[in-house]
């Protein structure tokens, strides 16, 4: 893949570049600020952009991501953050072709590369912590009281962006059982259960957002 990296810490930026290159990807642009990252993306039209949420002037990364996402066609963006902040990101996450991970997930290289590819393909990759926080907030306002613990687990993994098969593998369930759970979750939350994985995540996130806002 052709990748642009936007990251203000040179140490981290070069580390990331070396890691991605060692995995066979091509780094077509490096930027230390949000504006520079936007310019690089405009010049090189990469397959995916890796952006640090926090750059010198506050959460520049989110501003840059929003700008890039507004173009037609939108370039996939993988946001990396030192800590989770859902307040400004939820809106962004409902658009698809987006990822939002904690920086230390990078150390689990194989899974990180999988997530990056999923995002580049138009999918979604959400950090489990982000999902927990969204679900937690929704649960605190008791909208998820109707779900069984197992259904909550399924919902959590759906929100992270996994496919039915991947969810089944992680929970040691058959894909068919997973589908049953999903149907039940959608029915209890009165959501439109589309088969398309990405639209499914978007529906869930939109739902969580309206419940926690």
């Amino acid at each position: 893949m052709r990748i642009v990296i936007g990251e203000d810490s040179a140490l981290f930026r070069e580390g990331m570049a070396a890691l991605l290159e060692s995995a066979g990807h091509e780094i077509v642009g490096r930027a230390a600020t949000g504006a520079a990252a936007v310019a690089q993306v405009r010049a090189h039209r990469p397959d995916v952009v890796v952006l640090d949420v926090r750059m010198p002037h506050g959460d520049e990364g989110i501003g840059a991501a929003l700008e890039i996402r507004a173009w037609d066609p939108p370039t996939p963006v993988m946001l990396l953050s030192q800590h989770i902040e859902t307040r400004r990101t939820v809106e962004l996450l409902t658009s698809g072709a987006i990822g939002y991970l904690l920086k230390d997930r990078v150390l689990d290289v194989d899974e990180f590369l999988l997530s990056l590819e999923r995002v580049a393909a138009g999918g979604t990759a959400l950090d489990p912590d982000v999902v927990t926080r969204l679900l937690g907030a929704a649960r605190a306002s008791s909208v998820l009281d109707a779900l069984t613990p197992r259904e909550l687990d399924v919902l959590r993994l759906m929100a992270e962006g996994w496919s039915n098969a991947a969810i089944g593998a992680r929970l040691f369930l058959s894909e068919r059982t997973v589908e049953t759970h999903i149907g039940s979750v959608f029915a209890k939350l009165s959501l439109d259960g589309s088969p398309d994985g990405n639209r499914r995540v978007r529906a869930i996130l939109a739902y969580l957002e309206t419940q926690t806002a």
Partner: protein
Amino acid sequence: MGQAAGTPAVQQARTRVPWTTIAVTFLVAATLVAVVLLAAYAGPWLEPPDRVAVVIAVAALQLTLAVVVAKAAPGDVTGPLLASLGLILVVTNCVRTEEVGIFEGTWMLLYLPLALVLIVVPGGRPASGLWRVVTAVLCGVVGTFVVGNAVRSTVAPESNELTVVGFVLLALFFVLVVACAFAPFARYRHAGALERIRLRWVLVSGLSLPLTLLLCWASYLAFGTPDLVGIGLLVMFLAIPAGAAIALTRPQLFDVDRVTVSAVTALVLLAVALTGLSVAGAAAGTGMDEWPAVTAAVTAASTALACVVAFPFARRGFDRLLYPERARSVAQLRRLSWRVDAGLEGPEGVEDVLRASLRDPGLVIAYRRLADHTLVRLDGQLVAAGTAFTAVRSRGEEIGAIVPSATRAKRPAAAIARATAPLLDAVRLRSELTIAAAEAEASRERMLRAGYEERRRLERDLHDGAQQRLVALGMQLRVLQRGAGADDPIAAALDEAVAQLGTAVVELRQLAHGVRPSALDDGLAAALAELERLSPKTIELDVRAGELPDAIATTAYFVVNEAVANALRHAEASRIRVLVRHECDELLVRVSDDGCGGAAPRTTGGLTGLSDRVAALGGRLSLRSSAETGTTVEASLPCGS
């Protein structure tokens, strides 16, 4: 006088010494010379030594007052007038004027400075053209009389009869002196507030004139001769200069109204007593001077005793009569004091009471702050420097002031200040205490907020600094690992190193989380949900709270965190329930468990710290703990925006 003022004016320009200082110095020197000359040459014409001593003592006092006045009011003619009084007193009263013909008319000189003082004080000049004429005519009359008498005694020493001219001059003199007694009254009507206070002093000192008359009466009554008049004159010669000196130098020295009331009371009592004695004499058919000595002494003593006993009552009566406002104020202040003592009212009402009773809606009560002694109003506003006020004292210390409106230059009486003192003392301590408590509370809250801000910064620094570096290092190791190939033993070692780094990052994240959970950025509900997720036991969360101020949310989070930690650590609880409600501008946080209880604020140090945090935000933390019902920690935090 005009000439006297003219010549030294030139001198003043040259040497900057006021002419009055020069005149007073000259007159003092002249008096000393006169004393020395009299002692040396007067011989047989000198009065008896005791009388000379009294005269010189009185003159010395007058000269001292003259010096004080000349210093305090340079350029004011009063100083030289008082000094000339000393000189004249020595010259005319140490010599037997009836023996020295040339001195025969000089007694009139003695009254001239006194009359002029009444005309010129305060201000240093006659109040109007009319009074200038009076001054000039009086000087002319006295001058003519003195010179005329001297000439007559030289030319025809044997003729002792009063001439027609002499009679006219005498009559004119009496009329003018009586007129001078009215000069302060004429001035009073147009005077400003401070000038009125000065004039009151002059008027009070003028009461020595009726005193002299009353003494004359008493003297005739008791001894059949006017001998006591001498004492009255002596008093007058001291009282009027003293009154003028106080008026010009320190008009606020004493409460002039109080002095006036006392003096008037004494005079009236004296008059009443004398009337009684006169009536008694008339009824007995013989004058008191012809009574047996014992009867006279007993009568006089009992009359004096009655006067002494009656004095305070009479004074209060006159006080009410002459100054009804003050009497009303003091009575109302006493009533308020009583009501405050009885717990019916707060002492803060003192300002309203004084405003109403003194009919001054702009009046302000101020107290001296304990910390820096600055004068402040009850609402904490500073009182401008230079404002006229009556000081209020308690236990010898100035604790505050009654500040009348700017339009009222007359300050409230000292009696009012005394009645105000206990009330103001209470007001002062109360408001100082309130301010101190509020300040302590505010500073506690500031420290808490600063602490939370510090935690937020530390948390960010941990994330952006050390944590980020460790992750970057981990990535470099991963790159090396990938380059090494899967079966290289180095790769396994590197994998292990990255795993260690990952643990370090997690620990760092937990450390930062303990400092301040970043989930708080997303609200209290999100932070508590994370707390629940990380907890080893299920926590039943029931959180209904909208947007909260950061300090409130953080405190609430720490309350739950500590209470849950306690329950997990000590209580052996099977259920932990957290309830958060935001209702009526108050956030209620309740953490209850079904454990074995036994939690007490003293044994659980963490709860004590929490209690301080909650109190810093004006909230309350309560703890109920028993073996039957488990432990409940409840905090309520006011969060009215």
